[in-house]
């Protein structure tokens, strides 16, 4: 790995920077060489993409902060309209040019005003002779704003005629950003994903002080062995590592194993981690619940997760209505007679059932059905006589508001409305029991 070096910046700062960004040396050195010296011109816009938590924001922020380059850092999710975004940039610009003065709010309606005010701010802040960086995090939000915002940011250097570089950070590739009339293409840079070695190095960097580094590294190794297939997100892995470490240490504390007994420790932790994938990883059980569970020595998984709570207590007829709706949604019309009528006549021995197996509705999703069919099925599955009272009909609409059913094609409320059943098979099974 090349050591970072650049004539324009002090070696100590670069050394410090290098220690802050593990496994990102080549990206940082490339960025450094692109940025050049302070008074140099740089690219009008740089587009950096990479996976979730591949260090895009972190590297950019530490780089700009450590070298003390004048910069504006804005998250586009936070400032979700163009007006908010532009005003925030202007406010940050004021504060980065003059530390002491109080910043004042500048109203800025359009990009036209922005360019004018931007030029003023640069001149008054004394920033003309160095490159100013505007970093827009989560830049995919820019596509949601007015059509002129993204192209205008890409040529901000040309529009304002000042030394400014716009850096866009996103998870999505540049091809999906390009507007159809075209624009000035930015320089695209890729932050590659961390390999398993990198992840291991980063995760085992700050190990708990009461244990040795090797002990913690072995733990990280096991954790990656379980989760690496499914998840490469550094944040998620770090969170999981923090949650499950106390469980890993238990045998050592109890004295059943020492730090060298890797196999024993592995046997202890592995089922626990697999359980964690089904619960904590999916946020079925919250992290605090999980920790409490470990603390009380409870069996993991005995707690009901979030999805187990989906079972709703419904009135008698509502249950039948829902079952009838499910039957109507997932069965073809022509089998109705066979299934629900008592005297359905001859069973034709055709192969039509086989045909239907292939394109089963459980693959394609629910089909809409008319109200009449729902009621007909309801009458046939309820043993005693059901009067079509107002209550029955109001229960249907209340099922719609509970989002257990959904109305399709909202053109007619009274005359022949069509519904769809939007609950899963497990849910219906639970009701039917």
């Amino acid at each position, binding site marked *: 790995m090349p050591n970072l*070096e650049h*004539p*324009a910046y002090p070696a100590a700062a670069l050394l410090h920077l290098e220690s802050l960004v593990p496994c990102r040396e080549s990206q940082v050195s*490339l960025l450094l*060489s*692109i940025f*050049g*010296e302070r008074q*140099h*011109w*740089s*690219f009008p816009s740089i587009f950096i993409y*990479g*996976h979730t938590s*591949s260090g895009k924001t972190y590297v950019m922020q530490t780089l700009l902060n450590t070298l003390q380059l004048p910069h504006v850092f804005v998250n586009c999710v936070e400032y979700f309209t163009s007006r908010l975004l532009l005003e925030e940039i202007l406010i940050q610009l004021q504060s980065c040019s003059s530390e002491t003065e109080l910043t004042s709010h500048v109203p800025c309606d*359009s*990009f*036209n005003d922005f360019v004018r005010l931007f030029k003023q701010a640069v001149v008054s802040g004394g920033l003309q002779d160095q490159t100013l960086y505007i970093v827009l995090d989560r830049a995919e939000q820019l596509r949601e704003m*007015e059509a*002129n915002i993204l*192209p*205008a940011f890409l*040529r901000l*250097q*040309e*529009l304002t*005629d000042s*030394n400014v570089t716009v850096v866009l950070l996103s998870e*999505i*590739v*540049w*091809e*999906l950003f390009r507007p159809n009339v*075209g*624009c*000035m293409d930015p*320089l*695209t*840079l*890729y932050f*590659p*994903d961390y390999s*398993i070695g990198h992840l291991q190095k980063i995760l085992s960097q700050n190990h708990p002080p009461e244990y040795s580094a090797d002990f913690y590294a072995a733990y990280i190794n096991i954790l990656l062995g379980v989760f690496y*297939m*499914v*998840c*490469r997100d550094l944040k998620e892995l770090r969170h999981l590592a923090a949650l499950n470490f106390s469980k890993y240490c238990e045998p050592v504390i109890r004295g059943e194993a020492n730090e060298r007994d890797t196999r024993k420790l592995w046997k202890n932790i592995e089922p626990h981690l697999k359980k964690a994938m*089904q619960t904590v*990883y*999916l946020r*079925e059980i919250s992290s605090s619940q999980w920790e409490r569970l470990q603390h009380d020595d409870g069996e993991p998984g005995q707690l009901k997760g979030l*999805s187990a709570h989906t079972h709703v207590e419904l009135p008698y007829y509502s249950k039948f209505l829902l079952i009838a709706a499910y039957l109507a949604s997932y069965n073809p019309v022509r089998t109705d007679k066979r299934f629900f009528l008592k005297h359905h006549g001859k069973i034709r021995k055709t192969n039509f059932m086989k045909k239907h197996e292939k394109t089963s509705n*459980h*693959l*394609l*999703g*629910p089909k809409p059905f008319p109200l009449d069919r729902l009621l007909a099925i309801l009458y046939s599955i309820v043993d005693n006589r059901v009067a079509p009272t107002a209550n029955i009909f109001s229960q249907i609409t209340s099922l719609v508001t509970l*989002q257990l059913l*959904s109305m399709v094609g909202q053109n007619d409320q009274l005359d022949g409305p069509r519904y769809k059943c*939007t609950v899963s098979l497990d849910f219906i099974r639970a009701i039917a029991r």
Partner: protein
Amino acid sequence: MSKRRLKESCGVSAECISQVQQLLRERFCHHSSAPDKLFGLEQQYRYLLELLKRTTLQGESNSALLIGPRGSGKSTVLNRALKNLKETKQVKETLLEVHLNGKWSSIAQFHVWFQQFRLLQTNDKVALKEITRQLQLENVVGDKVFGSFAENLAFLLEALRKGDRSSSRPVLFVLDEFDLFVHHKNQTLLYNLLDVSQSAQTPVTVLGLTCRQDILELLEKRVKSRFSHRQIYLLNSFDFKQYMKIFKEKLSLPAEFPDESFAQKWNDNVQHLSEDKAVQDVLQNLFHHTKDLRSLHVLLMLAVSTVTVQQPLLTAAQLQEASRHHRNDSRANIVHGLSVLEICLIIAMKHLNEVYDGAPFNFQMVYNEFQKFIQRKAHSMYNFEKPVVMKAFEHLLQLELVKPLERPCARAQREYLLMRLLLDNKQIMDALQLYPNCPTDVKQWAASSLSWL
């Protein structure tokens, strides 16, 4: 470090490199810094200059369109022409007059008005305000600027009408991104500007810059009839030999570079580079990809930014490295970073696409396909639960590798939303080849789709 290079590095100071970078970076990135030379655009340049001269000196009203693809040098030609124009004596004198009597009443100024229209002026009202501001009419107009659009327009037209051909100085309107201007309501501003240029009022020249070839079809009939149909096409009409010449020209240091011996050395090196086979390959690649000079700038800029004191002269390897950065498949990069489970889902989608001939699919189908794989062949994988697979699927959705056909609404179930895959077969297979530690059975599964049915 070899002895030769050591000797070189001793001869070159850090300031020298810094100056080289400063100079070349400004050339490649700073657009308004007028270049010394136009490549293959001399004819258009002369034509445009003639046109502008006629406007400024003789008071003719004109309108013209500069049409060319992105990065073909429309703004460059215009900038160059304006710069040249301002250097001529007569124009300079009128410019001087402006500073003496900044009175507006007879538009006693030659006003260059260069704005990125539409990108900034998203509607006519904003544009009109900007016109008033740039013509420095604010002091006259006062609060009127904030009046209604109609008032503002009437005021401006009145001002333009007051002048006549002999006494008042011409105004030049440059409408960048002209095509976006066409979408304004009723094309009011365009109509009025072109109308003024057609009638005997203040001499006005309207110059439109656009990259759309069909721009005239977008104009309304009345607007079109007032336009003079003078079109200047800027096409990148040079062959590879000229491209190489441009490459040399762009990279060379000028004669006024302070350290002459280094400039000489640098230019010799550039000459040497242009004859290098590897460099020619790199440039040929780029040339076949696009002829626009902006991408050449990006490539050169990337290469130049790696020049350091230790390595003061550009090498072919640096150019190759820059080209590698410049052109890599972004989607393949993204696929490279996916987890094994996500890769499996993508392969399942690929198979669905092949079997059902590109019909849209939903999560349930993908999961079914994946289950078939797990049950029959996979030894390296244990069975993942459905919610875990769902989470992986949603990650793909978030990366926009998979796109829903319609916007997901709250009512519909997530597993039955119809989707489409935004990757093609070859991309998937190429990415799989490069994928680190890909399980063998997954690879085999990807290669054979039909044997799984």
